[in-house]
């Protein structure tokens, strides 16, 4: 060992050093070997995407594993460059484990992911709809998180709905084994049980509407819900909703009020719906056009949820513009421009003509 060469002034000192360093070596054997192969965790986009360590030879003789699971090597690929071996796991290393590196089955090093580089405490950013007054036949809610969240098996295990009027816990959401996350795992869609909303379906007959008119409910998100990195929510989150009558009208763009901005400015265009629309679909279904050319810019809903703001990339020019509306656009009750969510097919009256385009002019 290097220690033996440090000095030979007195045998006592050497003995002392030897005892001290041997003890340290035994306690932290891994640290010694870690030094020898110097594992370096490789980070990309806040993810631990690989580990490099000093070494050479047949890749098949090396394995990387969760420290207490030596017999279960992590799947991934090895490559060699400049005296270093790089291991790239199939998915990035998690922050919740310590990992070992073995050569011919013998541990030669260990490493952990630096949590500072990857971890963030998750928060609930918004519970949609933002408003606290909702129709009794509301169809969907969305939870937006600040970080990608874990699969939980059943999200409803982390969501409590309490009827404050009846002082009882209720289960208005559809129990789906699929967790309806968006691509980034930061937004979850929750359906109120559609079978209970549709008139005369069996669940509707048996259990009635999921919510009761004139009741108030608190919806609480449990703080034990964890992010993909295993970090629980910063706190529990709660929202109270007050339930009013049924929304049995299709969204009608004729009732929208467009406030055009001034020419030669980048001012916001305001579109007031005069009702609450599905906050996610509203952003997807509406496009601004000049002639056939889509305008580039950013769409955003106001906190009140009934007004859409469009910030153009370019200055407004004098001319005629249009707002194009996809008929899939829904209100909170799932009624779209074409049909009501709960339709009596015996009623042949289709109601108003469907408006899918509105004109406005910049002067």
């Amino acid at each position, binding site marked *: 060992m290097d220690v033996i060469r440090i000095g030979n002034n007195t045998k006592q000192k050497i003995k002392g050093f030897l005892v001290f360093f041997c003890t340290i070596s035994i306690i932290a054997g891994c640290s010694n070997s870690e030094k020898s192969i110097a594992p370096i965790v490789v980070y990309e986009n806040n993810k631990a995407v690989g580990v490099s360590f000093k070494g050479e030879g047949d890749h098949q003789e090396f394995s990387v594993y969760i420290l207490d699971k030596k017999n279960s090597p992590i*799947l*991934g690929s090895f490559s060699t460059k400049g005296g270093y071996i790089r291991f790239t796991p*199939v998915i990035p290393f998690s922050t919740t484990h310590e990992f070992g590196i073995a050569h011919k089955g013998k541990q030669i090093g260990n490493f952990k992911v630096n949590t500072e580089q990857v971890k963030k405490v998750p928060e609930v950013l918004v519970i949609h709809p933002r408003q606290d007054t909702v129709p009794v036949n509301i169809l969907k809610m969305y939870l937006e998180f600040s970080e990608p969240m874990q699969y939980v098996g059943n999200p409803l295990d982390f969501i409590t709905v309490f009827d404050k009027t009846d002082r009882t816990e209720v289960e208005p959401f559809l129990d789906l084994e699929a967790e309806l996350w968006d*691509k980034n*795992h930061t937004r979850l869609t929750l359906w109120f049980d559609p079978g209970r909303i549709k008139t005369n379906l069996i669940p509707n007959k048996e259990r009635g509407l999921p919510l009761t008119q004139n009741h108030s409910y608190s919806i609480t998100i449990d703080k034990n819900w964890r992010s993909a990195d295993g970090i629980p929510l910063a706190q529990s989150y709660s929202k109270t909703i007050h339930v009013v009558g049924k929304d049995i009208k299709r969204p009608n763009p004729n009732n929208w009020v467009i406030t055009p901005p001034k020419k030669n400015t980048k001012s916001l265009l305001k579109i007031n719906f005069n009702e609450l629309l599905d906050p996610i679909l509203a952003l997807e279904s509406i496009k601004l056009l000049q002639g056939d050319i889509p305008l580039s810019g950013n769409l955003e809903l106001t906190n009140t949820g009934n007004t859409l703001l469009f910030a153009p990339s370019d200055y407004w020019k004098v001319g005629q513009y249009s707002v194009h509306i996809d008929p899939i656009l829904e209100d909170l009750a799932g009624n779209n421009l074409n049909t009501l969510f709960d339709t009596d097919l015996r009623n042949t009256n289709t109601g108003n003509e469907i408006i899918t385009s509105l004109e406005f002019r910049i002067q």
Partner: protein
Amino acid sequence: MKKLLYFFSALTIVFISISAGLNRTSDTADLTANFSVGDPAIASINAMSFGPEGILFIGDSQKAAIYALDTQDKARKEKGGEIRIEKFDEKIAAALGTTVATIKITDMAVNPLSKMPYFSISTMDGTPVLLRLNGESLENVSLKEVRYSEIKIDQPIGEDVVDKRNRPQRVWSISDLKYHNGKVMVSGLSNKEFASTFRSIPFPFEDNQIAASLEIWHAAHGAFETHAPIKTFDVIQLEGVDYLMASYTCTPLVLFPMDELKDGVHKKGRTVAELGAGNSPLDMISYEKEGKQYFLMSNTNRPVMRFDYSDIANFKETLMEPVEEFAVATGVPYDNLPFPHVLQMDLLDKENVVYVQRTASGEVLLRSRSTKWM
């Protein structure tokens, strides 16, 4: 002379075998002729099913696309061998260097040639993972450098729309996918519009192909329509006719004659069983035992159900009346098998089924079982 005859006979057999082999190769070449090599950039794997010659069909909800992957896994085996792996979810998590809470087995499909089970795993980091079980070992099946072809199943308006934090908005959750007679059939559920779709897409995929689309509705609703999403389905043959056998959340079983599923046709199915509320079907498989055809259906809140094909064929009624009592089942008779909480299920070989089950102790078990006992 006798020796010479033997020699020529043997030569003929070898020749026929080689020809058959060549034919198979050329069939495969036809099926994969328009495949390209590279990274298909699969964003998620929600459902999988094997087609012919080791071609794996993958349903990608995030990209609203179906991929056909040439797995190159074509070594034929008659038997799948016995499988029994306890704490299977922990085994997968360890192989990925993570915990069970951050992964989800989204589907399982057995390659009918090699009898190897494939597992699609969804991970928190968003990387879809495809694993296969080779003996006792899990292997990573690369999704980066593969031979594949793809088809978009949906071209939603606003597909390119992102919110202010640059995240795409739409998820089209593919609930099931099967290959049958040159067609890939796909059912799905949207996280936005409740209306579901069912598509039948001819394979090999072609450019600018228009997929047949089909809307299906639930029986027993009187005058009130609902476009209920199909959760799982299979194709079964009754009295010489192919039927789509579909099951939905809450749990009706509905039959559609396959030859009536045509492009643009709005077809109403015949409900042959209501299998109880508060439940959702998960997987369906068909098998033969002692000369009789059966199919099995696994469920979220019911044990695996076994149906006799002949009972379905003999059931001529259409259920139209709502079931009045909660969770009561009516229609085609079936047997409840003593296997609750079966999460994934597929045929391992002619005589065995393989399934992933959450046991009473909460552990996840992967095991095979003879159809003799199913």
